[in-house]
């Protein structure tokens, strides 16, 4: 019997993989939309080039974190060469596990008072 894949086996995720999963968590996207959303989510600090994006997607497809989608939001308007990707149930679980792991790291950093005053508010801590 095939051993079920453990979510912990996939952690920690690289920033690129984490942000791609995050972008896919609220709907399917094509490659360029993913590049834009990751750049927007990270305030421009992580800008994926085509090589990095499709290298990640290749590995994420083989790890079954994402899958290709056959559906097109609007076939009339869209370039037929574009492929759409969506997060799998397993990918969503891995994303949640990674978010929990990061939250624990943030919590540990907060307990050691490593945040600046500006970021304390973002980290959800009362002054």
């Amino acid at each position, binding site marked *: 019997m095939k051993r079920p894949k453990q979510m912990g086996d996939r952690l920690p995720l690289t920033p690129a*993989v984490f942000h791609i999963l995050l972008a896919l968590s609220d709907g399917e996207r094509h490659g360029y939309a993913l590049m834009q959303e990751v750049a927007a989510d990270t305030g421009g600090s992580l800008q994926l080039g085509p*090589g990095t994006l*499709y290298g990640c997607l290749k590995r994420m497809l*083989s790890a079954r974190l994402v899958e290709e989608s056959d559906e097109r939001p609007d076939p009339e308007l869209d370039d037929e060469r*574009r*492929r759409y990707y969506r997060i799998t149930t397993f990918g969503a679980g891995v994303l949640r596990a990674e978010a929990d792991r990061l939250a624990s790291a943030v919590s540990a950093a907060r307990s050691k008072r490593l945040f600046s005053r500006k970021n304390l508010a973002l980290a959800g801590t009362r002054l």
Partner: protein
Amino acid sequence: MLSSSQDRWLRWLCRVYGLMLWAYPPDFRGDYRREMLVAFRTGARDVMQREGSAALLRFMRHVSWDWLYTTLRERTTMTTSMPALRWGAALPLAILAAVAVMRLDGFILGFNVVPDHDFQSVGTNVGFFLMAAAFVSVGVSVVPGRKDSVARIALAVVVVLATGFVVVGAIRMLMTPVAWGVCALLGGVLAYLPWRLHARSQVLGN
């Protein structure tokens, strides 16, 4: 809307990027070349429309670094893992094939390069080790796609046969079949392990 000169620039850059994509390994190129070109063209057009032609320089610098890093990474993945492991896995098979040819040659010509089995010899045990390793290696080297699954099946067969030897040896109180079984098991596991590790390293290399 782009002016005609901007449009010419865009088409020229797309042609250059299309040529750059030939640096990626064939498999990767086959899967993603068209999409990467679409993403590049859309990105370059957006930058031109938003920030003007001068911003293209910054865009191209970013894309060039991305291209350099990812072509190296994809090429490195291709050349250091798969073919190296494939050759490593094929080696026991080549040795086995050479021994088989020499023995067959002996049967036909009446001259055995490899002497008849001395069943207590270290050579026979090494032979079982190599045969099991070769069996698993054939599974992973020859059959394309889903190599890890094929390797597991081959390993399972080796484990069953090796266990058979060990059990028969134990029942008949003979050390020789036990030694054969243990050697076969070791050969199978050692040929399988690199593939298992390779499969794990392929999970998320970015």
